[in-house]
């Protein structure tokens, strides 16, 4: 390579071509441009006209300059100019380039690749065959042309582990087996790992070894630990340099699920130390959402610490003795627990049988005395396996015989019968306060508010073991909270209720703090290899060398013991592993990691990475020449008048320029405008809500739809005349298209041939039902089949209603509120008189109170009414108000029509007023009170 003015040329003799430029200038000047042939009728007028000047139009000087510049650029480009040429080309023969390619190299990977590229380019120019050896993924040495390797550079990526012993041994074997000697360039990551010496020896046996490394310390993050209410993270560095500040970022998801930095905490390496520790106190709720910690501006797998179940939200199952559907919320046994736990734990509700398989971290039993043997053994197993059972006392526990004679395995203490009440109306003494927590208690140090008093409790039997098990006591020494361990788990009993009936404890902040202390102790501990033995863990997400998580794809499962202790490698990658109910994070650095800098034999030259990369200019110059020639084409055409009409000229110019510059043509894209609100939908909404409006579902059968419409008109008129409900003209709604929320009542005639609504329509229908809407299904077949599948309409009804969220149904009971919302009715005829009508079933515990005419039935409105009496047929009127269809015979028929209208009135009243008439069950009581 010859170097002229700081630029190297690979074929400098080509520059002689520049001497030919003046000759070219004269040549181009002399040749006139080719004539244009034009068809022109006016040529007759031109005949005989001679040119004033016998010289043709010359090519203008600027066009000449353009052409000369293009030719010059071609000559220069072909001469192979190189900016910043590498001059220290030493050695001949094959070259081996060794890459550590582990995670410590990830932060300055681009520099390494640039250096590698430079060395390959150099070797390519010197004609040396090159082999590349990546230690984290060794392959047999292949000495090839440098260009082959350069084309493969983009595929190189650092691995998330350090070279393992096997890999190093394989590499050393390959090096020793090479046929001829070679020089070696080693791009080191700067970190020591076992087995390196053997490879160094093998390489030095073959030729000269030269090492390149950054000289910067390698930084790493240890796994996060949760201690004393804060998250502790240990930071490591490979060289004890001067004091250094780094920032640890806490990555996680915000409540909307978007990944973001939740917190950042600074950490400081003191001068001369290689390890430091930083603590981060996060609210439990925030802590539960942390997914990883990482060093700011330091992309490598070692600078990332994944979190697993240890910091996750705990699952707490809440089970109470009595579920009170209509009870007051503040009296609910679980209310305060829910309030206290909701921010920091995932709450599970349900029956014990259903909850145990979910394996919650904590199970809370509020005032549950007796458990079935099956439940008891399952629960014991669960506690044995590490669960935490939290029990609260209550009237039931006090009244039961649980743990009376001998200690129940699921109770921490034996109980005396009956419990005690202090400070009540019928007892002596004042309500008791809490004694300070002993130091051995998990509650130690919590301040005790003065207003926490206990007025009732269950009492523990004095036992030899009692003193050890008390973790909180009252001022008189009686236990308030007791605890015992059972297998790997524990059982905790609060001797008061979980609500405020027996004490004010649940009302105070102390309750939350106590729960938190208890719940924290139940968090998952890092498992040991012994516990994991024999289990198989499936990788969920694995890290690459840059610390980015990727889907694990089809990576095979990993043995539990290996996961805990084996060194990382291609078979065990750092990442998240799933083992059924829990997840484990395997981080690059273990808790006791030490980063050792790589040391080299003293006679091996070690260089830094920093050097200016070579920049070949040939391509740039040739591209410039191409652009200039394209411009020349345009300019020549323009001069000769052969360019297209001006309007197209610009577009063509842009196209040519874009082509020459290798750019994609400018992409024109319509700006996305927000979709305008659907005017039709708005209008529909305004029309439907201006007045109360009854609606029927369009079935697609014109005759049925017309009758339904007429029926709705008839019912609307009747309502208008008789009641304060004044509906406007009814409409038919299309379930697919129209919004349903505006209509209190949907009349849905069932025809065998109507299409099944789409899933989206069912979502709408279910929303409608849940938000208080009512659908009146009418099979119009007099219920001849008893809603079996025997009639086509019945079958269709079953098909239509299957995806709907419909509660259990029953035939309208005699005391249903539907029988008295406006008229007193017991039959609900339409055109057919005898069909049964079904509504939501009353709760099983509804009992008739003596002296009351009807039961205190459930709240709310039945979401569906199902019958087959063809009500719309009976209600239908024509434009003049005359009935459309005959009902029954004679006067009896008219009576039946009247009753059917009354049913309609009652139905709409029921929809609009709910159980208002049912509330009249309380009237005697109210009158009684007023009388006092």
């Amino acid at each position, binding site marked *: 390579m010859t170097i002229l003015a700081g630029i190297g040329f690979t074929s400098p003799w080509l520059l002689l071509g520049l001497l030919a430029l003046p000759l070219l200038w004269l040549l181009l000047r002399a040749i*006139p*441009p*080719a*004539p*244009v*042939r*034009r*068809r*022109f*009728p*006016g*040529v*007759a*007028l*031109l*005949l005989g*006209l001679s*040119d*004033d*000047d*016998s*010289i*043709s*139009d010359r090519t203008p000087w600027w066009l000449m300059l353009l052409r000369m510049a293009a030719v010059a650029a071609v000559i220069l480009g072909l001469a192979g100019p190189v900016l910043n040429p590498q001059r220290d080309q030493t050695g001949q023969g094959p070259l081996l380039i060794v890459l550590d390619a582990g995670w410590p190299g990830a932060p300055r990977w681009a520099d390494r690749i640039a250096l590698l590229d430079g060395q390959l380019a150099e070797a390519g120019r010197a004609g040396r065959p090159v082999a590349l050896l990546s230690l984290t993924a060794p392959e047999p040495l292949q000495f090839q042309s440098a260009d082959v390797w350069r084309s493969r550079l983009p595929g190189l990526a650092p691995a998330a582990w350090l070279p393992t012993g096997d890999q190093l041994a394989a590499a050393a074997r390959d090096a020793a087996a090479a046929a001829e000697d070679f020089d070696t360039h080693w791009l080191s990551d700067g970190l020591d790992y076992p087995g390196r010496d053997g490879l160094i020896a093998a390489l030095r046996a073959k030729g000269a070894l030269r090492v390149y490394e950054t000289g910067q310390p390698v930084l790493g993050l240890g796994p996060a630990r949760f201690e004393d209410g804060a998250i502790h993270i240990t930071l490591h560095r490979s060289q004890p340099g001067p004091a250094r500040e780094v920032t640890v970022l806490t990555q996680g998801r915000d409540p909307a699920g978007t990944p973001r930095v939740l917190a950042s905490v600074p950490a400081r390496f003191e001068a001369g130390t290689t390890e430091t520790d930083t603590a981060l106190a996060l609210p439990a709720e925030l802590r539960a959402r942390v997914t990883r910690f990482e060093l700011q501006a330091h992309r490598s797998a070692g600078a990332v610490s994944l979190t697993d179940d240890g910091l996750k939200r705990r699952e707490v199952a809440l089970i109470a003795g009595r579920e009170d559907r209509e009870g007051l919320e503040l009296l609910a046994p679980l209310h305060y627990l829910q309030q206290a736990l909701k921010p920091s734990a995932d709450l599970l509700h349900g029956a014990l049988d259903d909850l145990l398989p979910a394996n919650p971290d904590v199970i809370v039993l509020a005032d549950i005395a007796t458990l079935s043997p099956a439940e008891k053994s399952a629960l014991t197993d669960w506690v044995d396996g590490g669960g935490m059972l939290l029990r609260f006392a209550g009237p039931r526990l006090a009244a039961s015989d649980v743990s009376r004679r001998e200690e129940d395995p699921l109770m921490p203490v034996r109980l005396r019968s009956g419990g005690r009440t202090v400070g009540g109306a019928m007892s002596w003494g004042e309500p008791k306060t809490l004694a300070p927590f002993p130091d051995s208690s998990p509650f130690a140090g919590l301040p005790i508010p003065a207003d926490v008093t206990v007025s009732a409790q269950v009492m523990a039997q004095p036992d030899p073991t009692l003193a050890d098990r008390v973790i909180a006591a009252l001022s008189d020494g009686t236990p308030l909270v007791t605890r015992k361990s059972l297998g790997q788990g524990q059982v905790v009993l609060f001797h008061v209720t979980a609500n405020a009936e027996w004490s004010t404890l649940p009302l105070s902040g102390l309750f939350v703090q106590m729960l938190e202390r208890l719940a924290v102790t139940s968090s998952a501990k890092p498992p040991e290899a012994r516990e994991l033995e024999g289990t198989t863990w499936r990788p969920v997400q694995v890290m690459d060398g840059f610390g980015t998580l990727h889907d694990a794809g089809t990576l095979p499962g990993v043995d539990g013991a290996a996961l805990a202790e084996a060194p990382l490698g291609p078979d065990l990658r750092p990442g998240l592993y799933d083992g059924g109910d829990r997840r484990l994070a395997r981080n690059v650095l273990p808790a006791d990691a030490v980063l050792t800098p790589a040391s080299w034999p003293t006679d091996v030259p070690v260089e830094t990475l920093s050097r200016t990369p070579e920049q070949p200019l040939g391509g740039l110059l040739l591209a410039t020449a191409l652009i200039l020639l394209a411009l020349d084409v345009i300019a020549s055409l323009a*001069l*000769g*008048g052969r360019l297209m*009409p001006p309007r197209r000229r610009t577009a063509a110019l842009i196209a040519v320029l874009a082509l020459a510059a290798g750019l994609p043509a400018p992409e024109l894209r319509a700006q996305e405008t927000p979709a305008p609100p659907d005017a039709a939908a708005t209008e529909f909404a305004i029309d439907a809500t201006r007045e109360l409006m009854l609606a029927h579902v369009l079935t697609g059968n014109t005759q049925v739809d017309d009758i339904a419409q007429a029926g709705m008109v008839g019912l609307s008129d009747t309502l208008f005349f008789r009641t304060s409900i004044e509906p406007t003209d009814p409409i038919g709604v299309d379930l697919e298209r129209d919004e349903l929320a505006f209509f209190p009542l949907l009349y849905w005639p069932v025809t065998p041939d109507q299409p099944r609504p789409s899933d989206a329509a069912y979502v709408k229908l279910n929303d409608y039902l849940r938000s208080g809407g009512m659908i009146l299904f009418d099979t119009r077949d007099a219920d001849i089949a008893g809603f079996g599948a025997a009639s086509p309409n019945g079958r269709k009804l079953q098909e239509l209603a299957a995806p709907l969220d419909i509660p259990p149904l029953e035939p309208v009971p005699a005391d249903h509120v539907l029988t008295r919302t406006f008229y007193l009715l017991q039959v609900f005829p339409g055109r057919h008189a005898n069909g049964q009508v079904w509504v939501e079933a009353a709760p099983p515990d509804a009992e008739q109170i003596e002296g009351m005419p009807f039961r205190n039935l459930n709240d709310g409105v039945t979401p569906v009414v199902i019958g087959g009496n063809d009500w719309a047929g009976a209600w239908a009127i024509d434009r003049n108000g005359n009935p459309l269809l005959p009902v029954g015979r004679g006067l009896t028929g008219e009576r039946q029509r009247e009753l059917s209208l009354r049913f309609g009135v009652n139905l709409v009243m029921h929809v609009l007023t709910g159980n208002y008439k049912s509330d009249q069950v309380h009237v005697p009581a109210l009158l009684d009170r007023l009388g006092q």
Partner: protein
Amino acid sequence: MTSAVPPVVAPVAGLRARAEAEAARLPPLLARADHLAGTVLLGEHGRRRAGMGDDFWQYRPAQPGDSRRMIDHRRSARGDQQFVREREWQIAQSVMLWVDRGASMRFASSDRLAEKIDRARLLGLALAILLVRGGERVGLTGTALPPRRGQTQILRLAEAFAEDAETDYTPPEHRAMIPHARAVFLSDFLGELAEVELALTKAADRGVRGVLLQVLDPEEESFPFQGRTIFESIGGTLRHETLKAGDLRSRYLDRLAARRDRLQGLCRATGWQFSTHHTGDSAQSELLWLYRALDRGTA
């Protein structure tokens, strides 16, 4: 072998349809009739004055000199006065068209402009339709298609227009001109001027008046050429090479203006009218001008 239909049918139909469309936009045109001409024939449209014709015009009181047979007895019997029934004077005019079919007319400087010949034929046929609708007789100069009335004549004209000539410049046809008729010549008039002069003189001798419409392409007016160019006529018979086309522009334009002056002079001398139409302009306005030019002097 598959079809005996001449291939010109489709273009003819298209030309006629477009001409009909152009003509539909103007009111029926009534050509000016020369009172002196003996060629005046009775037509369907009245002259808005009493005269010979079939349609009733007015009753006027009988005057001395009216023969007794002229008295309209039905009207006169209603009163004491005697009335004469007058009829409307109805006449028809003959108009002869000549549309240059030379190769020089088949030129359009860009895809968006119509060829000159196409525009000339469109104008000619539109005018013919208007005239026929007005009850006039329309035909071509020469003996090929003498003036006749009726829709069939439009079809014949359209067919006659579909023929092209191979020579670059064709002289105006001036044979068999009907005396005192009217004539319309549509051409670019880039050919030999002596021929035009001969035709016009001959027409003037026979009392034929009319309109010369020069149809030109915008490029023929602007001459926007540069550089070394070889100009060729459309038929390929003429060619002219220049090294600097831009230098020829002013001299070319001078010659074009001189030629136009000459044509205008000729028209003035013979009582004809002259106008220039560019294919880049609207055909409608030009048809309007033709309508006015033919209608000029009408009572």
